């Protein structure tokens, strides 16, 4: 049996959660004050995912960098793979908001898109 401690992010209460697991399956969640805490804990210990935001350099733009995000959540364990894959990327201005900067980042099936427009210099 394995116990994992989490802080719920569902509301300002920030309940300290304890998840008891066995062979990757959740046996119980304690410490939560509402059902949202239970759902959050189960997702967080079995398939945690995040939206990743960062920047990539822009060639010939009014700004040196453009902000980007994964168009959807990717597995939490792949955050650094995603950032590493973007290290090799430079885009040419102009960049439009929503433009795909890198398709299927690090094999996650999720695109990285621009979150800002950058005009050419």
């Amino acid at each position, binding site marked *: 049996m394995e116990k994992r401690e*989490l*802080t*719920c*992010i569902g*509301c*300002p*209460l*920030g309940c300290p959660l304890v998840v008891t697991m066995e062979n990757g399956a959740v046996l119980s969640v304690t410490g939560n*004050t509402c059902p949202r805490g239970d759902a959050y804990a189960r997702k967080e210990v079995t398939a945690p995912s*995040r*939206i*990743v*935001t*960062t*920047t990539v*350099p822009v060639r010939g733009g*009014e*700004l*040196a*960098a453009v*902000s*980007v*995000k994964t168009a959807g959540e990717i597995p*939490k364990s792949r*955050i*650094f793979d995603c*950032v590493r894959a973007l290290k090799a990327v430079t885009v040419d201005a102009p960049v439009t*908001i929503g433009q795909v900067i890198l398709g299927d980042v690090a094999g996650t099936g999720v695109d990285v898109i621009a*979150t*800002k*427009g950058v005009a050419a210099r």
Partner: protein
Amino acid sequence: MKQIDLVILGGGPAGLAAAIAAYEAGVRDLVILERDRELGGILNQCIHNGFGLHTFKEELTGPEYAARFAREALTLGIPYKLNTMVLDLSADRVVTAVNRTDGLFQLKAKAVVLAMGCRERPRGALNIPGTRPAGIYTAGTAQRLVNMEGFLPGRRVVILGSGDIGLIMARRMTLEGAKVLCVAELMPYSGGLKRNIVQCLDDFGIPLKLSHTVVDIQGKERVEGITIARVENGKPVPGTEEHFDCDTLLLSCGLLPENELSRSAGVALSPVTGGPLVDESLQTNLPGVFAAGNVLHVHDLVDYVSEEAAAAGRHAAAYILGQKAPAEGEALPVTAVHGVRYTVPTTVHPARLEGSLTLRLRVDGVYRNKVLAVYAGTDCLWRRKRPVLAPGEMETILIKGAALDKLPGCGGLTVTLEEA
């Protein structure tokens, strides 16, 4: 001197929302004055997601949230001037500004909306001992350098203060290859959102040291090390010092409403928030001068900035178009007591209410299982249970309908915490 109906000082989220609301209420002769090279204000450097959940029911990044409002303002054809610094505002609403194309110019406005936002508390306001080397930045300066200018300000980082910008920058610096050694927080609780503590610190194994502060900065030309220590009763405890070899210290120690222009114009400011004292219409003590967003009081969520600023824009429009009830008549003070640190507004004119009254407030500490209540004289107007209240979470109270009939002649409003 050019006459104009409405001047909005600042083109960030508050200024944009105020301008759009004023336009939609019928004001056509208006201008936004913005210091930066683009609209959107500080949102442009806040590249993380989590903005707009209340307004758009989806999670946007800062630049995306800003772009939606900027696009709307552009579509409506609202005039704006970029790279424009406002130098002075007078009590009779003459705005003096300068930029490279118009030179120095003055506008005599019927109404002004203050939307200048806030600034970070700098090292000089923190009394940190030690030398004064390079490598000490406010978290927001580092954010701008990394996210907009494309520079990484350091490789080994200690962060003082667990405000949201500090937490966000802990993650940001980590993703860019820096090592964030710890976040030290003077208070026994973090001022940041729980979500940020989990997703910016816990996700990357960055320790949060509560009740700790920086007691020494080493290095002559560049930061070489930071010493932190545990704090009890406001004093560092000898023997608890911990040293970190690092090249950078980021400061995330609170935000201060930026009211240099307001103060010189004669706008009365609150000693608690540092922002203007306003009435239910978000009007300051100067007739025709309104305020909204972080210049009024520091917000946690931009959604509430937009909401508040849209109200200020509507009230400014009503003032310009002569639809506002005159200021004569009863003005009720709003008093914050028993754990409520401040309220916005601090004055209510019952005759000017249009069916609802919005009160925003913060508490002075962490409270559990309390009741938040509003009294008109001794009549209770509104009360709600709150499982938790914290200084980092702004509360909003909306009072509607028959409860407002109790206001005339009540002597004043009181906002308080009570036992559940």
